[in-house]
């Protein structure tokens, strides 16, 4: 009796080809299929739509009124600058983090993740495909903020767009990883409202979204600088308005990358694919 290895026509890229093509066409096709389904689910959930569309707007308005009374001279920012640069971070935080956690928990508890893993789609493709719709919604809102801010709030156009984009990209990756990890710790969709609160507060207050960090005492500022979302927000702010020298940009980039590496490790180690109940 022999096996049929030789007879089998080649259906996928072989292992050697696979190593060279990091993201193959097939991989993109799978993620697109999953993202399309995930977008349909997002549109069908009233809660998810609320969190994706109205909540970020409210948070940015809240930032605006919070900064009205504040002395921002120490941070060297006008009110419009503080609100808009923090607003980009806020949109990323609320739209990505608050939507992705309950979405992943729901899929896990409905055994959708387990079912998907029986197919050809890779684990990383499942997570990226699931994140794609909310990430896209967040990026569109960021674009609106940049355009509207420049036009309406008397804020100059971004000074170094590349740094701004790098900050946004790192912020997206860090938040997706944080959402995946939080989902791993969350038992039910209902409890995700509780489990997302600590990271939401830490990022909103400690990463300079509401209030520039320079306003805190020095010791606290230093701790806040190490938080996962702080470096991306600093890059976003610098990319728009300036204020960092080359070393500071490099170290913010390095710190973000360190968080990404730690996040990927933690996700591989601790994410749960099988239902908890």
């Amino acid at each position, binding site marked *: 009796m022999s096996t049929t290895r030789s007879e089998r026509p080649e259906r996928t890229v072989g292992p050697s080809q696979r190593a060279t093509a990091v993201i193959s066409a097939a991989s993109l096709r799978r993620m697109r299929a999953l993202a399309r*389904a995930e977008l349909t689910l997002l549109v069908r959930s009233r809660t998810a739509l609320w969190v994706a569309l109205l909540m970020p707007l409210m948070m940015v308005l809240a930032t605006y009124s919070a900064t009205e009374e504040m002395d921002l001279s120490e941070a060297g920012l006008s009110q419009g600058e503080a609100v808009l640069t923090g607003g980009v971070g806020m949109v990323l935080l609320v739209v990505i983090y608050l939507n992705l956690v309950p979405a992943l928990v729901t899929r896990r508890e409905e055994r959708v993740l387990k079912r998907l893993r029986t197919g050809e789609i890779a684990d990383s493709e499942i997570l990226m495909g699931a994140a794609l719709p909310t990430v896209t919604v967040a990026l569109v809102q960021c674009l609106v903020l940049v355009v509207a801010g420049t036009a309406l709030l008397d804020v100059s156009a971004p000074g170094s767009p590349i740094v701004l984009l790098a900050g946004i990209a790192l912020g997206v990756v860090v938040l997706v990883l944080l959402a995946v990890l939080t989902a791993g710790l969350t038992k039910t969709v209902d409890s995700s409202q509780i489990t997302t609160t600590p990271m939401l507060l830490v990022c909103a207050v400690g990463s300079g979204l509401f209030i520039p960090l320079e306003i805190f005492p020095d010791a606290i500022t230093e701790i806040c600088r190490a938080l996962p979302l702080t470096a991306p927000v600093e890059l976003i702010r610098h990319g728009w308005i300036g204020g960092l020298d080359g070393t500071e940009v490099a170290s913010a980039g390095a710190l973000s990358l360190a968080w990404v590496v730690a996040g990927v490790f933690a996700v591989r180690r601790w994410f749960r694919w099988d239902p908890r109940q």
Partner: protein
Amino acid sequence: MDTAIEVQGLRRSYTGRGSESSYEAVRGLDFSVRQGEVFALLGTNGAGKTSTVELLEGLAPPTSGQIRILGLDPFHERAVVRPWIGIMLQEGGLPSELTALETARMWAGCTTDARPPEEALALVGLEGRADVRAKQLSGGERRRLDFALALTGRPRVLFLDEPTTGLDPQARRTTWELVKSLRDEGTTIVLTTHYLEEAEALADRLAIMTEGRITVSGTPEEVMAARPSRIRFLLPPGLAPAQLPLSLPAAVHDRQVEIRTQDLQTTLTELLLWARAQGVVLEALDARSASLEEVFLEIAGEQNEWKRHAAAVQGGEAA
């Protein structure tokens, strides 16, 4: 004929939090499945069927032993094996807010050389329910949608973990017909089931698992032939058990007589000739070959008896 699945010395242990709580669910399996064959894995709950199938599907690595699916390791060569296999898990995995068609379309997008989603739905008779969301489908319809997903990649090897649980008899028959036609097209199918008549109807070969081991295996005919047939009747009034023909190994409880035999025809002839000679009527006469169900219950019963025995011995030692 070619081998589609080859399993050698397969073991799977689950380690709990404490080092003490490790549990061995699969305890050394050897079997192979030929291409184009339906292979049924039977067993009571907790016998290790699903644990075994998960290893074959490459969802987890075995603790020890070797598995070859179409000549490849299903866990370590997962990316190469997956396009060739179709999997239906024991329980759901359908997003409740997506319609049947949207779900099938998502799955097709994740699959190499996929059937069109409409075709996959039609295979399982769900074309009329394409626009119904999963949460509004009946349990049986959800099961069939799950089956459609497993068929999307035109698999060479198909794993079905309790595919007809929750289906009404009509839908079960339809699924059976589909399994048979897939087999006739050359698909290799591994099936676990609770329903013995399902194994009897579909399986070319089967294995019965108890406590992580295969106790009996072979074609359904072989498995049933290995067990004795049985004849039952009520002892005619006025006859003592000692008056029964001595050549027949009979067990008598009250008036109920039971005879076990490997050669049903000869034994039955002898019994009936004796009855005519004696001029007695054998009330409630019943003669039958061993059914798969009997074989199964007998094996499960032996296992329980053995367990009770072991418990008694241990209890004795402790005291």
